[in-house]
């Protein structure tokens, strides 16, 4: 130990804080470290900057010189006189068709617009747990309101459907407490059917009562159709997905088998083939005389499609719950439906929300495939009526950029939300 230096050294006052050396801070350092840290990086940086600059130089004049006020491509070309420039006027001319399709009555555009604005209000409390829970009441009313706004007709129709659901729910709750889940379900269904049946007389008698001009499903089009298909199918597929997920988790081999076959089958085939089914064979499976229109058949198939994917997400959520939760529910004497409804699903669904949101984004993008079976969604409008119209044959960049923008805004927004939610779930307690 003899020659260890500085033994017993004690520093009495701390050294005052000192700034780091110059080359260690500021913009210079940032540039050196982030752009030119070695020669490969430098080359990459220069290449990328060159590349970006080229794109910007090429596209800005085109965008900037854009023409906004002509009524056909020919006029637009004349105005531009050979200089590079976009014919944005196709957007000002046809924005309404791209958003609402070409058959939706112009004077009723406010209705779907309002419906989609309210949609934001409706899903806000579901997506953000911090908002007041009272807003959920509006979320519950919303589907009926939106139906009325978009499809029109008398307000009585959605009101009666709503009432029938309430009646069904009451009947279910009452009977379930007295007798049991299965009976409750049955009486609920009976109550719904009864109210609907009685209600149909009322609507028939009072079809003009607070009525909006009715619009047929096949008149829906444009981006509105994408949004309708997206929201309707995802909402419908969640209950179905839950049932499938529970079935797949079940230890009864036959039920499990049915669910597995269904899920794997749907996930194994492309959506297009399912749309073909909706388009050309589904009608054969309905009793003779039923005539569901195309949009309904498409909704059925897309719902089945997304239900299979959502079931897999929810299955993950169910698997993530500790066994103890199931056992605690059992030992308290809760039966299977109660345990699922009160204990398991609320937790599993919460874990699954980010996954469900991802499926929803994917599905929303996939709604463009309906253009392949000649429905006029946003892409269908662009490919069909707009580009084949005499005035605008030959234009594509402007139209598709608009479509890209719309989809990007919606999908990017949603996926940012789901990432936020994932971070939230990772940190939050209870």
């Amino acid at each position, binding site marked *: 130990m003899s020659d260890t230096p500085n033994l017993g050294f004690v520093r009495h006052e701390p050294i005052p804080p000192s700034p780091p050396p110059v080359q260690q801070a500021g913009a210079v350092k940032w540039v050196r470290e982030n752009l030119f840290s070695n020669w490969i990086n430098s080359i990459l940086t220069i290449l990328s900057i060159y590349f970006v600059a080229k794109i910007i130089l090429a596209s800005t004049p085109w965008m900037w010189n854009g023409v906004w006020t002509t009524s056909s*491509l*020919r006029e637009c070309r004349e105005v531009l006189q050979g200089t590079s420039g976009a014919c944005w006027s196709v957007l000002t001319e046809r924005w309404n068709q791209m958003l609402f399709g*070409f*058959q939706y009555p112009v004077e009723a555009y406010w209705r779907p617009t309002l419906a989609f604005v309210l949609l934001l209000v409706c899903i806000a409390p579901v997506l953000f747990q911090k908002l007041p829970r009272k807003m959920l009441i509006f979320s519950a009313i919303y589907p009926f309101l939106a139906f009325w706004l978009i499809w029109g007709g008398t307000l009585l129709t959605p009101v009666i459907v709503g009432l029938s659901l309430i009646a069904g729910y009451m009947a279910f709750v009452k009977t379930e407490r007295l007798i049991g889940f299965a009976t409750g379900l049955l009486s609920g269904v009976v109550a719904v059917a009864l109210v609907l049946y009685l209600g149909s007389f009322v609507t028939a008698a009072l079809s003009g009562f607070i009525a909006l001009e009715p619009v*047929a499903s*096949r008149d829906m089009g444009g981006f509105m159709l994408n949004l309708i298909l997206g929201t309707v199918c995802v909402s419908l597929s969640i209950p179905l997905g839950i049932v499938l997920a529970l079935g797949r988790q079940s230890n009864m081999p036959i039920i499990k088998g049915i669910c597995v076959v269904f899920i794997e089958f749907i996930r194994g085939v492309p959506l297009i083939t399912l749309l073909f089914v909706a*388009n*050309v*064979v*589904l*009608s*054969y499976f309905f009793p003779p*005389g039923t*005539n569901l*229109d*195309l949009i309904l058949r498409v909704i059925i198939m897309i719902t089945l499609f997304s239900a299979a994917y959502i079931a897999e997400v929810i299955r993950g959520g169910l698997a993530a719950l500790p066994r103890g939760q199931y056992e605690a529910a059992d030992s308290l004497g809760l039966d299977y439906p109660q345990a699922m409804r009160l204990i398991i699903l609320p937790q599993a669904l919460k874990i699954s929300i980010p996954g469900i949101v991802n499926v929803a984004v994917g599905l929303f993008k996939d709604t463009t495939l309906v253009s*392949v*079976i*000649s429905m*006029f969604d946003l892409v269908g409008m662009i*490919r*069909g*009526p707009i*580009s*084949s119209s*005499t005035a605008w*044959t*030959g234009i594509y960049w402007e139209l598709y950029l608009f479509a890209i923008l719309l989809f990007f805004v919606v999908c990017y927004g949603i996926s940012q939300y789901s990432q936020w939610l994932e971070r939230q779930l990772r940190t939050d307690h209870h």
Partner: protein
Amino acid sequence: GTLDDVKARGKLNCGVTTGVPGFAEPDANGVWQGFDVAVCRAVAAAVLGDNMAVEFVPTTGKTRFTALASGEIDLLARNTTWTMSRDVDLKFEFVGVNYYDGQGFMVPASLGVSSAAELDGATVCIKTGTTTELNLADFFRANGISYEPVPIETGSEAAQLFLAGSCDVYTTDRSALAAQRANFPSPDDYVVLPDVISKEPLGPLVRHGDNDWGDIARWTLNALITAEELGVTSDNIAEMAAGTNNPEINRLLGSEGTLGEMLGLDAEWAKRAIMSGGNYGEVFESNIGTATNIGLSRGLNAQWKDGGLIYSPPFR
């Protein structure tokens, strides 16, 4: 039967093309117009008394037959060629011919091609799922020349590719070629070759088996044709309906006989059908005739008396 369904629904579901100018295309207000559309409107007028009570279902070459077979539409009026296999094997009922057509080729004038036989090695845009696809294969095989098919779903996309020069030739029914060419930015740069490589009798069709409904569609079309033959037009129909001294006109317009009842309709069915868009000639002229920018002449589609093929069985 379909008649009852249509009456109960109050609307006729009619399948049309997704957009061929002059034949079926929604105008700026979204109202469907065209030669095929007129047939639908006439049937709706005859059956429902309202020529606007039609729900137009746009179909592609691919979806049209399943739409009809599955009952999604009651009547398909979509420049569809009457072929034996469609009639017999696919179980449809063609109710007549409203346009006698043939398959033709359109090429850019600058190509300097004057006959289809010079098309060896050309790239050909073609609508899939049509008779023309098969005709084309047969034609090139028969002539021992090669080609490169570019299959396209809808007419508008085919036109886009053709205009961009992605294919040298665009082939389909000559009527459709003319219609689409009329819509091109500079129609004169493109020519339709003189060759006609097939017979394409285009007509409306219904499902096989429901003969009552088929009769209504068939005789509505015939009523339009007969009206032209007898000189009944939308202008003079009102006075003629009051009664004329031509008994066939009287039977047609219901002032004499019970032809309407036999169809399960009222006596004025044909009058309404004709009033909806005029007689066959009027429909032709206002939608695709020489006065329109499509500019098709009657040709084969002139009345038999004028040397054409348009010929209706008698109303008796």
